[in-house]
């Protein structure tokens, strides 16, 4: 395993914090959106865009780039913030989220915004797309990887398990997928609405290489990505244990912030907590 220097980790954590502040400002400005699930995915997204993935904002269609599919499309604010901070489009444009004529649709739209590989939003579909990209890469003898983030609620979709079968069947070891396991979906706790446990056992039984991590620990995220890269003959599913609303005390584990933006006062408080209130 690579021993990542402390300053690398610290820089990623700083970036993740910045992404969180964008998420707060964006959803506030839009007046709608999904801050909770964006914040739970933020550390994974930050690790991927600012460290793990090979990509070029100056050449979004570079053919050897690693691909990213946000299957849980409602975490778009965090995704867009990472794209803007990577230089795909001006950071100022983040404030247009969900507004008329904006390139920043409520859920990612492939043909609107540079850097968005796939339109998502209807849950359960992204992993199939990632598999297709992985098969294409193998057919073309390319070595780039496909990254995909799924929500835990999505595990209730049948298509996810169809994709699980296909990924294992075709030995797609160029796929690194994540489940953002924040335990909550719109109507309540996943285990109360429609239980998905034992999740790791399910993915193992479907033939995947499974890693369980703390999805807010940068070092663990990077290590998981490295281990996935070294795995042969199997796709990797990283079950990332996360906290919905992570990073803003009153949003953490609060179901109400699944699909509701912070109000004026909550926005100030959140940005202050993040140290981004200047």
């Amino acid at each position, binding site marked *: 395993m690579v021993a990542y220097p402390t300053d690398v980790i610290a820089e990623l954590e700083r970036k993740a914090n910045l992404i969180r502040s964008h998420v707060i400002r964006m959803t506030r400005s839009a007046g709608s959106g999904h801050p909770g699930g964006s914040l739970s995915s933020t550390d994974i997204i930050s690790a991927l865009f600012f460290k793990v993935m090979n990509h070029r904002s100056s050449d979004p269609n570079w*053919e050897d780039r690693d*691909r990213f*599919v946000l299957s849980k499309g409602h975490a778009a604010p965090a995704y867009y913030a990472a794209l803007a901070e990577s230089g795909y489009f001006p950071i100022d444009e983040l404030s247009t989220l969900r507004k008329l004529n904006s390139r920043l649709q409520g859920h990612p*739209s*492939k*043909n609107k915004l540079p850097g968005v*590989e*796939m*339109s*998502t*939003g*209807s849950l359960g*579909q*992204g*992993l*199939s*797309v*990632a*598999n*297709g*990209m*992985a*098969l*294409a*890469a193998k*057919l*073309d003898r390319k070595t780039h990887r496909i990254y995909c983030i799924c929500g835990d609620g999505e595990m209730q979709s*049948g*298509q996810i398990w*169809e*994709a699980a*079968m*296909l990924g294992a*069947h*075709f030995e797609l070891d160029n796929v690194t997928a994540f489940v953002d396991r924040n335990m909550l979906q719109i109507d309540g706790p996943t285990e109360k609405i429609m239980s998905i446990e034992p999740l790791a056992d399910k993915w193992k039984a479907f033939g995947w290489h499974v890693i369980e991590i703390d999805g807010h620990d940068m070092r663990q995220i990077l290590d998981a990505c490295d281990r996935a890269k070294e795995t042969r003959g199997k796709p990797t599913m990283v079950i990332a244990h996360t906290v919905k609303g992570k990073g803003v005390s009153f949003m953490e584990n609060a179901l109400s912030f699944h699909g509701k933006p912070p109000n004026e006062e909550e926005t100030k408080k959140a940005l202050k907590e993040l140290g981004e209130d200047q």
Partner: protein
Amino acid sequence: MNWKYASQRKEYGRALIELGKMRKDVVVLDADLSGSTRTADFAKEFPEHFFNCGIAEQNMMGTAAGFAASGKVVYASSFAIFATGRCWDQIRQSIAYPKLNVKICATHAGITVGGDGASHQTGEDVALMRTLPNMTVVVPADAQETYKATKAFADWPGPCYMRMGRLDFPVITDTDTPFKIGKGTLLREGNDITLIGCGNMVSRCLEAAEALEKRKISAQVINMSSIKPLDEALIEEAAKRTGGIVTAEEHNVVSGLGCAVSCFLAEHIPTPLKRVGLMDTFGESGEGEELMRKYGLTADKIIEAADEVVKRR
């Protein structure tokens, strides 16, 4: 009329092989029906470029989207009801919305599937695909046109849908008959009524036109294989010339070819019209031809409709 018959599916398989020889970017996906859809013919020649996704059409469409997003031209096949109804949301979200190069080529459409019954038949597929923005919809009239459409899809950007039948269809075009997406073909000229058909029903339109001719009703026949984009210029010309239209399709009259033609005419050049097709009903088991008769998909029904429209002109 004494028709020669030929298989659309066989020509689909042949066209795929031709494409495989011509270009490296073609991949073919199927959902455990490759023997029936004839994608197996391609698989035999180009095993590396063929992917059987098992009985999981939703996942097949998502996988197809991923391939297409990586620059491949993807042909995805199954029976028409499973290739459209089972995975409509996946086609909408992952293929049509991002405008990806996926060619959904489905067989066993309509009721001529026969003995399998209503679960495997479909009179809804054209409707389901036609309503999707960015989607092109082609219903070839015979085997030769199927071959041409399959090849045309490869050079036509974006998502496409093609519907084929299980049974052999009467041969009405030859290698020289022009085929262009967005264009219909005037197969027979006439002055009193225009019969516009697609797929299996085009040959029945020709039979009806011949019978009408004997009764001094001069009918022209259009093969409207391109349902979206629709050849509006040809329809307008036909409406002006004959003042009456009959449409015929092996599909529900709700939202199929007949509706496409009616909507255009109602908005641009209101013209008496009657639709022949499945009258908003499911099919059942039986021999293909028996079913066509029972559900009114015959030359006689077209003649009846033509008589009615001629009176209304």
